[in-house]
């Protein structure tokens, strides 16, 4: 049987991680292809519901990444985001949602190699955790009506 290929959605900020991921490519660094990137203006804009939507729609893991502290394009978006993440991770864990499937990182525009490493590590870890059917099957549209090429 083929190895499980997790589907991972990365929510990244426009100014650091997205540019960093761009650098990964221009630097010809290869990484696993399981990650789809969604670019947002700032980590401060990454609403927790985006993450939950990703899981509901079939993601097995999520990466959230933005500028290092003190490097935010908007000065403090990442600081505010970080506080929310602290509470959000704890809440999810408290509700029994598998918070290990949400990977947070700071990747700057200069860290193409780090982005590749974040992605590769995430893929390895999520692959080990297996598909997140527990969550994606909560929706009747998934649970009672599975098709091969959903969404």
């Amino acid at each position, binding site marked *: 049987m083929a190895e499980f290929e997790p589907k991972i959605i990365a929510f990244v900020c426009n100014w650091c991680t997205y540019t960093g991921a761009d650098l990964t490519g221009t630097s010809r660094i290869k990484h696993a292809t399981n990650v789809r990137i969604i670019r947002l203006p700032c980590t401060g804009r990454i609403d927790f519901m985006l993450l939950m939507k990703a899981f509901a*729609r*079939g993601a097995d893991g999520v990466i959230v990444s933005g500028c290092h502290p003190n490097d935010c394009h908007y000065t403090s978006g990442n600081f505010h985001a970080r506080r929310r993440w602290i509470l959000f991770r704890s809440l999810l864990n408290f509700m029994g949602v598998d918070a290990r499937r949400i990977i947070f990182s700071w990747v700057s525009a200069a860290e193409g190699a780090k982005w590749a490493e974040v992605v590769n590590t995430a893929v390895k870890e999520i692959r080990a955790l297996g598909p997140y059917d527990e969550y994606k099957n909560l*929706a*009747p*549209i*998934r649970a*009672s*009506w599975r*098709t091969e*090429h*959903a*969404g």
Partner: protein
Amino acid sequence: MTDKKTIKKSSLDDLFKKMMADGKRVLAPVRKGETVLFQEVDGYSAVAADYVQTTLSAKEALLPRCEEMMRFTTAQSTVSLEEGPAKPSPVVVFGVRPCDARSIAVVNAVYLKDYNDALYKEKSDSTTIIAVSCAKSDEYCFCTSVGGSPGSTEGSDILLTLIDGDTYLAEILTDKGKAVVSIAPALFAAAGSEVKEKHLADVPVQFDLGALEKKLPGAFDGAVWITQSLRCIGCGTCSYVCPACTCFDIQDETDGTRGMRFRCWDSCGFGQFTLHTSGHNPREVQSQRWRQRIMHKFSYQPDQLQVVGCVGCGRCSRACPVDMNILQHIKDIVEAR
């Protein structure tokens, strides 16, 4: 003439098992923490004892809080309907209170009047109601004020009344009821001259329904709605626990090219219930929504559907987070000069 039999309490587990062997799902009140909810059970031992009223009504057997209406796939410019899930197996709802059984007539009046709602009809046809008379009532009960009684047979297929510690008088009221007896005839015995009346809870009549119905049409612009609903917080609890509330919302959920349509409960207590696309809301404030709730049940439905939209189960008052007591409010309206 109603067929009267008796059945021993100790035989009910056998009856449950026989009904299940016959391919029926049995729903019965089950205690969960401080609530009593209808759930599928696998034997009589799971059934809650010693409660006045279930937290939610048995309505959900016929009108689920969320039910699939259809599923579809889209491609380019076409939409195709897909085969839905298999038809649900027949259900027996055990332990329904007579007020709840009466409420089915209200739901029928909405869903089976000029248009047979297929989803509802299917469930209605395949559901058998085994009601149990009330030996207890509380200060929230007022079935007798709206035409019911703790031993009313209306809406039930079988009505059980406990006539001594271990024996139920079973009134077999419909063909569905007879079908249940025929699954396990040996569990039923012929009834003697027992009457149920002295085993029923005493629920006094609290107001004159006719007087209320006469009064309401002229009360539309009164100040009473504001006074009564000052403390109403606009949640949907009263509608959702109500056995006779029938309003629904339709929601589509899609995932890529696939979609599902659901029917979900909705409530006139919500501010958005009547919100128009234009932004206009004919019921802008809570007092208007409260008026709608009372008017709909006690004026519009009797007028249009010849049925009172309330069976006096008292659930809305028990469940209301802010103690909106429907009985008290109605009495105040009737008694207002």
